[in-house]
């Protein structure tokens, strides 16, 4: 019945999946997005919404260039989405900070930036270390314990939940089929087509793009690919809506366009998204109050924990299958930052049927074997 109904089946309805699906639909593909249900482990509902450049790429220099490319494409991406849906995802690139609460933290930060930018072949962009006084000129509400920080003018942020909604709205308007509660159990390839088996029926498509976050680890081997993942839990604390006071995002603290302040960036070795470690939230809150003492009286109205999509080395994986031509993986931690790349660069490659090695070659999962062998 559904035989060859779709050109591409995108597995995963999170930000990576829907950005890719949107890009595919723009290329004229008939696309189906297969998603899990309401209680799925959803990294896209639990992300911090940074479009972030500084500190990306230590250990894999091309990642820095790939990140800068997306950052540069983001404004146009947001504008296109606005024209299509009328929804503003509030992309801003005012430059962002990484704040240090001691001289030791500041020195560690300076060393890390130096190591990153000293790598051969890395794209060069401005990222500087500022002392307390220089930071205070841009972030007047910092507390006395802030020793300084690093600043990069390419850093920005977005309303990520609205981005999520906007992409779903755009998919809907473009006639993309969205199938929630369709967890993919098996993928087979017969007669040049993929069959994706779910409890609610089998979907047939010419190509498959695996964009299922940590679940790619389970799915990729079904099409002769691999996605070594290392999921971890992160927690976020959110305050009530406040009048705008913070005009630059900090890597662990930002004020959203709605006025709430998001505080976070914890890492725990847990894969249970339901739990919450109060001591972790307390540490996040404590650092936030030391950075911005005026936040002490703000009410915390929500917290959440979510499982980070994390590959084993932290860098994205983009691959095409040799054994199962037409199968691709699109897998990364920074689904917000890289959304523009996934929509505007990766999706067209998948539509054409081949990844462009000059752009995404370094991100093949084959690197894990090279490292193991080396």
């Amino acid at each position, binding site marked *: 019945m559904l035989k060859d109904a779709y050109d591409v089946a995108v597995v995963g309805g999170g930000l990576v999946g829907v950005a890719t699906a949107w890009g595919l639909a723009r290329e004229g593909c008939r696309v189906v997005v297969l*998603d899990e*249900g*309401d*209680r799925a482990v*959803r990294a*896209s*509902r639990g992300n911090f919404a940074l479009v972030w450049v500084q500190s990306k790429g230590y250990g894999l220099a091309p990642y820095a260039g790939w990140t800068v490319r997306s950052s540069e494409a983001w404004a146009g991406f947001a504008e296109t989405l606005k024209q299509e849906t009328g929804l503003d995802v509030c992309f801003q690139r005012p430059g962002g900070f990484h704040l240090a609460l001691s001289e030791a933290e500041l020195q560690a930060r300076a060393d890390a930036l130096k190591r990153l930018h000293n790598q051969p072949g890395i794209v060069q962009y401005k990222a500087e270390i500022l002392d307390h006084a220089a930071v205070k000129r841009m972030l007047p509400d910092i507390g006395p314990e802030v020793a300084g920080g690093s600043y990069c003018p390419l850093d920005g942020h977005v309303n990520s*939940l609205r981005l*999520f*909604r906007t992409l*779903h*709205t755009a998919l*809907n308007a473009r006639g993309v089929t*969205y*199938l*929630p*509660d369709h967890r993919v159990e098996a993928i087979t390839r017969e007669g040049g087509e993929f069959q994706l088996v779910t409890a609610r029926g089998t979907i047939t498509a010419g190509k498959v793009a695996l964009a299922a976050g940590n679940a790619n680890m389970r799915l990729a081997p079904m099409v002769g690919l691999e996605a070594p993942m290392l999921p971890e839990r992160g927690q976020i*604390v959110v*305050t*009530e809506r406040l009048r705008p006071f913070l005009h630059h995002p900090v890597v662990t603290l930002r004020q959203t366009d*709605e006025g709430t302040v998001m*505080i976070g*960036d*914890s*890492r*725990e070795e847990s894969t249970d998204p*339901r*739990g*919450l*470690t*109060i*001591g*972790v*939230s*307390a*540490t*996040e*809150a*404590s*650092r*936030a*109050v030391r950075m911005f003492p005026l*936040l*002490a*009286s*703000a*009410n*915390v*109205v*929500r*917290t*959440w*924990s979510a499982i980070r999509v994390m590959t084993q080395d932290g860098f994205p994986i983009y691959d095409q299958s040799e054994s199962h031509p037409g199968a691709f993986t699109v897998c990364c931690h920074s689904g917000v930052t890289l959304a523009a790349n996934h929509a505007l660069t990766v999706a067209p490659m998948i539509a054409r049927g081949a990844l462009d090695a000059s752009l995404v070659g370094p991100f093949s999962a084959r690197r894990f074997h090279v490292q193991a062998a080396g």
Partner: protein
Amino acid sequence: MNESYDLVVIGGGPAGLAAASTAARAGLATVLFDENPGIGGQIYRGITANPVRNRAILGEEYWAGTALAAEAKASGATIVNGATVWSLDASLAVGVSVAGRARTIQARRVIVATGALERPFAIPGWTLPGVMTAGAAQTVLKAQGLLPNGRTVLAGSGPLLWLLAAQMLRAGARLEAVFDTTPPLNWSRAALYLPDFLLSPYFKKGLALMREVKRRTKVRAARHIEAVGTDKLREVVVDGRRIPSDLLLLHQGVVPNVNLAIAAGIDHRWDARQLCFVPVLDADFGSSVPGIAVAGDGAGIAGGTAAAERGRIAAIAAVRALAPDAAVPDPQSARQRLQREELGRAFLDELYRPPKALRRPEGGTIVCRCEEVTAAEVRKTAQMGCEGPNQMKAFLRCGMGPCQGRLCGLTVTELIAEERGRTPDEVGYYRLRPPVKPITLGELASLPASEAERRAVER
């Protein structure tokens, strides 16, 4: 306040008071946390410092709370008012905030007695100043001796509506009208349970109340209620009829206040008769999380007298688990009294089952008051493929404001169920996490963290 207790009771209504008394008398180190300035919960609000001199106004049912409050005070339990419990987890650590200071208290057993709240009544204009819940008017009548002053309209259905109308009339209030939204067809379904109801204590009380109200004011049947005004309520429109009004009091039953229990990880299920989520409990009101019981209306709506019995039963179980040799009352007699109290419940549930049209709003009617999300937005997003309240929250921010879904959760679940052709049980409820009530960032920052917890953040 100690750092740990045998039993922490959360909520100072009838269930919490009875539980704390029973446990403390049996020798458990017991603390009762209640958020309000005084004990009594909602039903016995203001019971220890009531400004209403004429006892007839509130009725003998209300004053029955005096004995419970006195018993709790004499029991040896530590009672802390103005204490907001914002966290509870499977380790039985209770996060509580008192006078602007947060701390965690370790319990060996916990009884959640957080009671009920009024079912969302999302009609056009329900966010206007001048529109309140009937329970709100009752609260200020009980605790502060305040009575509506201007043109007042009551609308909705359920026992509390009649009780409030009677109390206000006794106190000398003038009501413009009472609009009863009980669907007439409910009577036929309820009739099946009439024999039990006739035997229950609610039968005579209820009938007397209805007679009292109907004798003194006009009660009309109504289907569609709308509050109209720009800056505040100007008129109530009932089935097309416009009634200039200063105050509209809404009520369509109460539902368990589930936020703390859900955040604690307790399993809940949809109760198809009461149209709400209720915790899954054993005969002693023990929940799916070992050591935590849920008593009172939080365990499913049964009323104040039943709540006290549930509290006793849960407390007896806690005593037996922690101090097997301690003397406790026989739970059988509490169970029998509870059974009698619950006898007429099915009839009341069926009779006062709110109509779909008043549970599942349409168009521009606000569903989430905090984030100002409309029914049309929720419905449209569900049609787009959004299958559950957590995804809905991500798309529309409903449930993300300070009330954390208390005023929109059931509506959102029901709207999704309708649009997706699913049952509310399949759709489920918001995932909730501590703090279930706001605490300040400074309070959160003051809490202890282990070395590992610090390292999870400071890298």
